[in-house]
C-alpha cells in the first residue's frame, strides 16, 4: 500500500495513458508549466506536439479537439475554471456529443474534458466556482465526478479510453484527499458503476464528489443512532440506477447531497427516479446549493450557499424520524 493523493492520481493517469497510447494528446491553458499540477512533466517528456499550450480561445480549441478526434486522435483538454464549460457548451453539447448520432454512427469523438478544481475554491467568487456537472448529464454527455484517489485514477483512464466525449469534474474539495492505495491494483473504473463506501441499513446517502467525505463524516457521527449507507455514484451519466436501487430497497430512506443548484439538479433526478422506481418508506430529501445560486465572494457567504456536513446530518435525522 502506498499513500496517493487525488491530484497525484490524476497526474499519474494522464501520464500513464500518454505513455501507453501515442494518440493521446493534451491541450489547455498553461499546461506546459502545469499550473494545476496535473500535466506535470508531460511537456518535457512528450514535447509540444502532444502537450499543446493553447491561446485563450476555449471555443476554438474545444472544437479543434473534436476535429482531431474525428481524424483519429484522443485529445484531453484541461479547463482551468469550471465556468469555462459554459463558454464551450456549444462545442461539447451541440457538436462533439452529436456527431455519432447525426452521422448515423460514422463518426466517434473520443475527447476528454477535465476540470481540476471544480466547485468552490474559497475566494474565487461568482465566475470561478460552479459545478455544472448536471448540465452535461442532462444533455447526455458522459459525466464523471470521482471522489477518491483510486477512482480519480480509474475514471480518468476510462474517460480517455472511451470512444465518446467524457467530462471529468475533479472537485476542488477532493484534490487534497489522500488514500492508502494498492498501486498494482490501480486500473480503469467502469462508467455507470457506483460504489458503496460504507454499508448501512437505515438511510442511503448519495453523495457526489467531495461530499462523499462529508457523508462519511455524518455516518460516523450518527453511528450509534442511525446506520447510514454512503453511496457514491462516481459517474453521474451513465448513472448506476441498479446499484442505487439495491441500496434504497434495503434502507427505504434516501438523502442526496449535491454541491450544485437545486432546480433541475442531479439531486432532483436521483430523488425522482427513486420515487418512481424504488421502495421508499419515507419522503426523501436533498441537500444542495439554493435555486439559481451564484457563489458570493466573502467566505461566510460562500459557505452559506454550499451544502454543509451539518445540514446533511440534519436531513438524515429528519428522514429517519419521518418514517417511524
Amino acid at each position, binding site marked *: 500500500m502506498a499513500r496517493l493523493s487525488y491530484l497525484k492520481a490524476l497526474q499519474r493517469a494522464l501520464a500513464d495513458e500518454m505513455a501507453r497510447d501515442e494518440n493521446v*494528446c493534451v491541450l489547455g491553458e498553461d499546461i506546459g508549466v502545469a499550473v494545476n499540477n496535473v500535466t506535470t512533466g508531460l511537456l518535457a517528456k512528450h514535447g509540444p*506536439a502532444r502537450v499543446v499550450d*493553447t*491561446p485563450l*480561445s476555449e*471555443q*476554438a*480549441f*474545444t*472544437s*479543434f*479537439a*473534436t*476535429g*482531431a*478526434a*474525428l*481524424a*483519429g*486522435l484522443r*485529445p484531453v483538454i484541461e479547463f482551468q475554471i469550471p465556468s469555462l464549460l459554459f463558454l464551450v457548451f*456549444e*462545442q461539447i453539447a*451541440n*457538436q462533439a456529443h452529436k*456527431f*455519432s*448520432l*447525426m*452521422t*448515423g*454512427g*460514422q*463518426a*466517434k*469523438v*473520443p475527447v476528454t474534458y477535465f476540470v481540476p478544481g471544480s466547485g468552490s475554491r474559497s475566494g474565487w467568487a461568482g465566475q470561478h466556482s460552479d459545478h455544472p456537472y448536471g448540465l452535461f448529464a442532462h444533455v*447526455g454527455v*458522459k459525466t464523471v465526478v470521482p471522489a477518491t484517489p483510486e477512482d480519480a485514477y480509474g475514471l480518468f483512464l476510462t474517460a480517455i479510453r*472511451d*470512444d*465518446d466525449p467524457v467530462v471529468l469534474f475533479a472537485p476542488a474539495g477532493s484534490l487534497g484527499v489522500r488514500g492508502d492505495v494498492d498501486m498494482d491494483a490501480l486500473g480503469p473504473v467502469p*462508467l455507470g458503476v457506483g460504489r458503496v463506501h460504507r454499508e448501512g441499513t437505515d438511510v442511503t446517502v448519495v453523495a457526489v464528489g467531495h461530499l462523499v467525505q462529508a457523508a462519511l463524516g455524518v455516518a460516523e457521527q450518527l453511528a450509534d443512532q442511525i446506520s447510514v449507507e454512503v453511496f457514491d455514484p462516481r459517474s453521474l*451519466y*451513465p448513472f448506476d*440506477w441498479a446499484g442505487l436501487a439495491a441500496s434504497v430497497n434495503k434502507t427505504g430512506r434516501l438523502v442526496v447531497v449535491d454541491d450544485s443548484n437545486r432546480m433541475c439538479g442531479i439531486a432532483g433526478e436521483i430523488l425522482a427516479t427513486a420515487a*418512481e*422506481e424504488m421502495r421508499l418508506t419515507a419522503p426523501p430529501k436533498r441537500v444542495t446549493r439554493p435555486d439559481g445560486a451564484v457563489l458570493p465572494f466573502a467566505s461566510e457567504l460562500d459557505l452559506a450557499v454550499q451544502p454543509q456536513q451539518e445540514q446533511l446530518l440534519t436531513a438524515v435525522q429528519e428522514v429517519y424520524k419521518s418514517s417511524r
Partner: protein
Amino acid sequence: MRERSDMELYRTMRLIRRFEERAIELVHAGEIVGGIHPYIGQEAIAAGVCAALRDDDVITSTHRGHGHVLAKGADPVRMLAELTGRATGLNRGRGGSMHAADFGKGIYGANGIVGAGGAIATGAAWAAVKEGSDRVAVSFFGDGAVSQGVLLETFNLAALWRLPVLFVCENNGYATTLTVAQSVAGSITGRAEAFGIPAVSVDGADAAAVLDAARDAVARGRAGGGPSFIEATAYRFDAHHTWEHKARVRYRSDEEVAAGRSRDPLDIHGVRLDEGVRAGIDADVEALMAEAVAFALDSPRPDPAGALDHLYATGMRGRNGIGLLDTAVR
C-alpha cells in the same frame, strides 16, 4: 488535361444544380421534411475547390452543404436518400440535409451552426500533420460566419501553428436576410490577413478561377506553408431556405435577383465545353438524378425502434423516456 478537368467541373456543377432542383421539388411534395438551404448559384465554389482535393483530404461544410458534400464525392443517390429520411441514406436517416456526411470520403459533415466547422477542420489538419501526412482540410463557410468569434479564434490557431487548412468564405451577399454591408465591418479577406493568412478574392461564379485559387492554396498547405483563405463571391439564386418559398419574405428586389441570376456559373463554365459534350453530361446527370429519386422514394424508412441507435459510439443506452420507445410505463 485542361479539357478533362473542364468536363469534370461542369459535371459536378450540373449534378449539384439538378440535385438541388430535384430536392426542392421533393420538399414541396412533402418527401423532404424540414426543407433545405439550396446551393443553386454557388456551384462553382464547391466544384472548383473540391477539384483540387484528394479523397483523403477533409472538408467541413455548412447548413447550405449539399454542394460541398456532392463535390467531395459523396454518392448523390445515398445523399438524396438521406434528405428523404431513409434508412439507406448516407447517415442512415439520422442527419438529413444539415448534417449529411461521408467520413469515407473525408466529408466531416454539413453543420447546423454557422462558423462551427472551421475549428473542426483545423483540428483535422493538425491530426494530419501529426501523422506525417500531407492531407489538407478545407472549411467552407458563408459571409455570415465571419462574424462568429470562434472562427476568428480558429484563424489565429491555424496561422500560429501553420496548419494545412484552407478557409473558403462563400460570400453570397447575405447572412440569411442581412446584407454583407449590414454585417461586416472592414473586409472579409482583411480578417484573414490580420492573422497573416494569405487571402485572395475570386469570382465564385467561375469554376476555373476557383480551381486555380484552390490549387495554389492546397499546394501551400501540402508543402507546410500553413493556412490559406479564399473569398469566393457568388449569388444565391434561390431562397435562404425553402421555407421562404411560402413565407415570401422580401429582402431582395426582383431586379437584383435577375441580375444575380444572369451570371450563371453553369453557363460561365459551360461555354468552355463543346455543346455536344455538355449535352451528354446533362443527360448523364439527368439519368443519375432519376435513379437517385427512385432509389430514395423506394427505400425503407428507418425503424422507430432504432431512434437512439448510434447515440453513443460505444453503443451505450440511457433510460428511455415515455414515448414510442417504451413498451410500457415502468
